[in-house]
Structures are given as structure tokens and as C-alpha cells.
């Protein structure tokens, strides 16, 4: 009897425990607020003892951001950089995913291209900036190609890995249920490798940002990279900081939005690992 009662009480306790909110402090730490407060604190202290041209205070940066917003240049630069990244990234994905699927599926293609892919992928996009300008001009084209390049290999390699990671039994079962090769591609291989493709696309977003800022620093009249680079000429260190913060925010937001999309629209494919 006693044993049974104990068991019931234990269960109740466990239930309450699991329902209890975790400590307020723990929550605060997890929300990131504490970390950001710390950053601001250290930043403020450091800036108070140094030259504002060397390290502007958070307040100065905030004022710089307002300066830049007044004539609309900040929002223009944000949208220009954003458009470049998003269009190059989409185009890069559109090229990389089908190629990755094919290479992953056809061992002959894999044998053929594997050495090339593994060679070229070590050349960072930034190394191509001058070359792409030479080939595609200094306009939008060269920048979009650069983003495509930055996207292409990451997504291709991830897609290939995803296709290869699919269990043979899935293909076999589909085949014995009468699926054609095309149907297997459409209904087994693509959905099955989506988690890998998704991860590749997400990583590529990061490298696209790096590439575009580099390209805008070297050759552009607009964009966040241009802004950062140009601010140096006027010793507007606060503007440089505005650019850095904006970059972080843009990357963070895009990643979040993409993740939310993955969680909602691609839920059944389990693309977002918690």
C-alpha cells in the first residue's frame, strides 16, 4: 500500500516540477538580455576612457544611426545589400540544388566532379572579387555572381551529402512499389535530403553576407559594405559601428526568418534540428 502511495506522490511532484517555470535568473540569461547588457556595459566603459574616433560610445553610435537615417541613406544601403544577398542566394540555390541532386544520385558524375568541387570550394569568394569585376563589370552582375559563387558550393556539397545519406532501403522500397527513377527523385530523394539542403542554404546565407560586404567595400557606391568602407574616409567611426550592428541584425533576422519558414512550411521534413 505504502509503495503505491509513494509512487503517486512522486509522479505528482515530477509533474509539478516539469510545469514549474525555470528560475527567473535562468530565463534572463537564456534570453540573451544579460549578455547584451554586459556588452553594452563594457563597451560604454571602454569608450568613456578612449577617443570617440577610436571607439565611439553606444550613444554616439545611436546618434550616428539617426544621422544616417535622416537622408534615407541607411535604409537604402540596407535594402541594396539585402537585395544583392537575397537574389544571389536564391539564384545560387537554384543552380546548386539540382546539380547536387544529380551528382549525389549518379556515381559517374560524382567521380567526375568530386575532385574539382573539393578543389574550388577552398577558394574563398572574396578572392574572386577582382576577377568577377573584370568578367562581369562593376555593376550588380558581378556582385550577384559573387553571392551565387558563395552559395553554390556549400549548397551543392550539402545536397550531395544529403542524397548520399539516404538509406538504400528507402530507394529499394520505392522501387519495389513501382516508382520510376523520376518518381524516386521527386518523392524520395528530394524530400529525404531536404534537411541537408536546408542546412546548406542556411550556411550559405552567412557566407553570402561576408562576400557581399567584401564586394561592396571594393567596388560599390551603395550598400552597407560601401558605407563601412567610406566612413573611414571621414573618420566617422560611429558610422562604421552602425554598419557592423546593422550587419549583425540583418544576418540574425534573415536566419531567424528562414528558420521559422523551415519550422512552419517544412515541418514534416524535420529540417530544423532543435
Amino acid at each position, binding site marked *: 500500500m505504502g509503495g503505491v502511495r509513494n509512487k503517486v506522490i512522486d509522479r505528482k511532484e515530477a509533474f509539478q516540477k516539469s510545469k514549474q517555470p525555470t528560475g527567473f535568473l535562468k530565463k534572463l540569461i537564456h534570453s540573451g538580455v544579460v549578455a547584451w547588457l554586459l556588452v553594452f556595459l563594457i563597451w560604454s566603459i571602454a569608450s568613456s576612457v578612449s577617443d570617440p574616433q577610436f571607439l565611439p560610445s553606444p550613444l554616439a553610435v545611436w546618434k550616428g544611426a539617426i544621422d544616417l537615417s535622416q537622408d534615407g541613406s541607411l535604409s537604402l544601403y540596407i535594402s541594396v545589400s539585402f537585395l544583392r544577398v537575397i537574389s544571389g542566394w536564391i539564384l545560387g540555390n537554384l543552380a546548386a540544388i539540382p546539380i547536387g541532386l544529380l551528382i549525389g544520385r549518379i556515381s559517374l558524375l560524382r567521380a567526375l566532379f568530386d575532385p574539382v568541387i573539393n578543389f574550388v570550394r577552398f577558394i574563398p569568394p572574396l578572392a574572386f572579387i577582382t576577377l568577377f569585376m573584370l568578367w562581369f563589370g562593376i555593376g550588380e552582375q558581378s556582385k550577384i555572381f559573387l553571392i551565387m559563387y558563395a552559395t553554390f558550393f556549400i549548397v551543392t556539397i550539402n545536397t550531395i551529402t544529403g542524397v548520399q545519406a539516404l*538509406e*538504400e*532501403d*528507402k530507394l*529499394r*522500397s*520505392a*522501387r*519495389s*512499389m*513501382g*516508382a*520510376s527513377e523520376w*518518381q524516386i527523385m521527386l*518523392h*524520395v530523394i528530394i*524530400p*529525404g535530403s*531536404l534537411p541537408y539542403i536546408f542546412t546548406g542554404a542556411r550556411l550559405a546565407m552567412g557566407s553570402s553576407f561576408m562576400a557581399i560586404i567584401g564586394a561592396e567595400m571594393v567596388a560599390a557606391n551603395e550598400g552597407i559594405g560601401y558605407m563601412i568602407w567610406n566612413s573611414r574616409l571621414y573618420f566617422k567611426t560611429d558610422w562604421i559601428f552602425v554598419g557592423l550592428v546593422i550587419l549583425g541584425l540583418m544576418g540574425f533576422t534573415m536566419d531567424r526568418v528562414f528558420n521559422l519558414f523551415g519550422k512552419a512550411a517544412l515541418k*514534416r*521534413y*524535420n529540417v530544423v534540428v532543435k
Partner: protein
Amino acid sequence: MRTVKKPVTESAPIISISGLTKSFANTDYYVLENVNLSIQRGEFFILLGPSGCGKSTLLNIVSGFIEKSAGEMSVDEEEVHKPGRNRGVVFQQADAALFPWLTVKENVEFGLKMKKVPKNTREQASAHYINVVGLQGHEGKFPRELSGGMKQRVQLARVLANDPDILLMDEPFGALDAMTRRTMQTELVRIWKETNKTVIFVTHDIQEALLLGQKVGVMSVGPSSNIETIYDISLPYPRSFSDKEFSLLYHKVQSHFD
């Protein structure tokens, strides 16, 4: 005497294998050598043998997943080299075989969808076979939400929905706990009786073989394995371990592996 126009008689085997030999590329031995086997329509055939003797290899050849090296194999009196809808395969690892992005119902309808069967026919079939395997109420769940035994039921329903003549099962209950395995064995016998399918069931478990099979083909230890002896098990279903004849048979089969 046989005439050219063969009537499909009771005795025409649905699967017929003769002189079948298999060695894998880059190996210098035969996994299977001179396998001879014929299986009657509607028969529950067990392929029994120790691990590594070539059971899966033989089943994969019948499935059409891999090519034999020599010999003949025909299904319904036709040589086969490819997988086909007439042979439904139930794999050992449900997680590897099921599509985790599809619900139970969608998994079961997969084959019919590939065949472009209209939606309402498809739904009738899936509802029926989900019922047959006892998964009603779980149609909308994803495989990851199911237990191991339930996943194997999904595999079974998915295969049955294509209405194959033959079920090929490679140690399908090997990964289940003992209690679930027992339940699944009983269920399989019931389903086999309900659907009149021909079954080839691979196992290395003698008890399982004797619980399920009408015939038990014992394979010799590899390499160059083949089917050493075929036992006719005439015990009525449901069978029980405690049956005297069961234990006699058990010891007889066991002696092959001593």
C-alpha cells in the same frame, strides 16, 4: 506431358530457382552456390540459417535488388532481374524503409500514388489495409511517433496496399522486443491467412521459423551456401512452444547448427 499452352495449375510454383549462384564483385568466393528452390502459390516459406550465410543475399535477388551471378530464377514463370510490384518487400529496419516525412496513411498510399491511382480509391485501400494491420486511429501520425512494432505494421500495410502476390520479409521482427515480436508473429499469420499471399520470411531464429512457416528451408553455413533441407511443418496454427511435436522439430532443426 506438358503442352505449350500451360494452364496455371495448383502445382506450378510461383517462385522457381535453380542452380542459382552468387558471388559479389571483388570477392573470390561464392556466397550462394547452386541454390534450388520452388515455392508454391500461397505458401508461407521460411528461409532459416545462421548469420552471414546468405539469406539476405538470396532474398535481395528474389526482390530484384541485386543480380545473381549464374543460374535461373523466375517468378510466375518469368525471369526477373528487377524489383516489381508483384513482390512486396518488408525490411528489417522500419526507420530506414519508411518515409519519415509522410504520415502513416501517406506511407501506405505511396505505391498507389506512384501508380497514379485516383485519390478516393487510394484512400479506400489505405483505410482497408490500415485496418488489416490494426493501425486504425494512427493514420495521421508520422513514423517517429510510433513504436517499433507499429512501424512494422505500417510497412506491412504499405506493401499490402499494392496487392503483391508475394511478401518478402527479411528478419522483420528482429529489432523488436520479445513481447512485441510474439504479437507480430501472431498477427502476420492472421494477415497471411486473410490475404492468401505467398510469403518468404527470413530468420535466424528457429522458434520463429517453426511458429510461422509451412515450410522451413534450412541454409547451410556459408560460403557456398545453399538450401540444405526443407522441412514440411504440418502443425496447425496457432502453434505453441509447449507442443511436443514442436520441440521434436526444434531439436531436429537445431542439429543442423551444432
